[in-house]
């Protein structure tokens, strides 16, 4: 798959940059600048969400993903597993952060209906697959260093989402199997607490993040939806927090709830982040309330 080979390539670049760093000796003149030097502070690389955009697990932040700071290029590759009562989700994503200004990302998700697939008449183990490509641009602000100011880091972004299941999505009442959503995100670290806060507003009509298509028979149009997280830093490599993501309720065939989770993020080095969460994603596709685990591994540079 293209994604896998891209991940390999990214890993290779990460390795190269790492070697470049370890071979770098003292230079006689001027400050050494390392393009792939992972110059961000630990934990501030975050982890990509299910769309592949830098943020938390289910929400997007204003931080540019990866560990590249100003004048540097960073990147990440992520694998996420979500298992709730009647469904499971696998997501892989990659992203690149350019000069702490622009983030480009891509993700592929497979939503497995498991036994519920049979009950829904789709067949046991029927899968919904969708791809996302995203771009995020930091507009202004610095979430981390501006500790004497309340002004957050603010970014805008766009996601292009496309599902492979056009016929089924049309059958359940979705208006479209592909769509573009825009978001505006504000993130701020309050180091004295120490708390990292994030608030994002998204103009979207994605059903279950786009897994069940876009818009519906009940509500066809996009609306402004809020999401955010609060992460309490337990140390410089461990964070504990909550996330909340508002969802639309567009389809009359099945109600949709907001998503929420409680997470623990462990970042032993700038090159690896591990996240686990207990997620409550509410009512999904006639199968009642769904909750379960979220686990993700992210490789960064």
């Amino acid at each position, binding site marked *: 798959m293209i994604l896998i080979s891209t991940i390999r390539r990214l890993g290779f670049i990460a390795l190269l940059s790492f070697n470049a760093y370890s071979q*770098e000796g003292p230079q006689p003149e001027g*400050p050494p600048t390392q393009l792939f030097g992972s110059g961000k502070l630990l934990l501030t690389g975050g982890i990509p969400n299910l769309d592949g955009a830098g943020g938390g697990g289910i929400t997007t932040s204003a931080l540019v993903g990866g560990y590249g700071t*100003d004048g540097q290029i960073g990147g990440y590759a992520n694998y996420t597993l979500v298992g709730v009562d009647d469904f499971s989700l696998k997501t892989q994503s990659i992203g690149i952060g350019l000069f702490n200004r622009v983030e480009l990302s891509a993700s592929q998700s497979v939503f497995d209906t498991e036994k519920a697939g049979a009950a829904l008449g789709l067949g046991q183990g029927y899968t919904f697959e969708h791809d996302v490509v995203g771009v995020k641009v930091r507009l202004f602000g610095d979430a981390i260093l*501006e500790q004497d100011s309340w002004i957050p880091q603010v970014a805008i972004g766009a996601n292009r989402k496309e599902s492979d299941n056009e016929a089924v999505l049309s059958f359940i009442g979705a208006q479209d199997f592909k769509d573009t959503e825009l978001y505006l995100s504000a993130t701020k670290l309050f180091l004295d607490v*120490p708390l990292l806060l994030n608030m994002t507003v998204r103009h979207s009509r994605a059903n279950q993040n786009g897994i069940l298509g876009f818009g519906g028979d009940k509500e066809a149009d996009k609306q402004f939806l809020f999401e955010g997280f609060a992460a309490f830093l337990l140390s410089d490599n461990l964070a504990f927090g909550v996330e909340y993501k508002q969802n639309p309720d567009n389809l009359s065939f099945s109600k949709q709830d907001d998503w929420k989770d409680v997470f623990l993020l462990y970042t032993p080095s700038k090159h690896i982040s591990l996240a686990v969460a207990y997620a409550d994603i509410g009512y999904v596709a006639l199968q009642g309330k769904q909750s379960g685990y979220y686990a993700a591994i992210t490789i960064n540079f």
Partner: protein
Amino acid sequence: MKNILLVLTLSLLSGCAVSNSQVSSTDRYAYKAFGEKAGIEKVVDDMFVVILDDPRINTFFAETDNEYIKEQLTDQFCNLLNGPCQYTGADMKSSHVGLNIGRQHFNALVEALRLSMDKNNVPFGVQNHLLVKLAPMHRDIIEK
């Protein structure tokens, strides 16, 4: 963990209470937690060991009077924590002008300070209390 909670509580208290004294209780606690001036001096010393071993930033300190810089930093940190010290060194802008310091170098120094504070068992919340005061200096230090 206990220390983090203590600092958190103190931060909240000092934030809520109208303090008459110039030195907040958080500052007093932080200064003590550092081990007063001798402790700060040790943290600065150990930070310099890390800095001089870090190829990302050690070139900045290759031809400088590092003993003098260490003294100045000790006084500055002590002063920021409202300890009984006078910082008499140059302001941040003029002492860093022309060095072409980038954010990656600034952050590398923060990492050296974190490592040193960890080594000297400065509680996480106390570390943050100092870093909160140092972080805004990036505006005078970072040039590109």
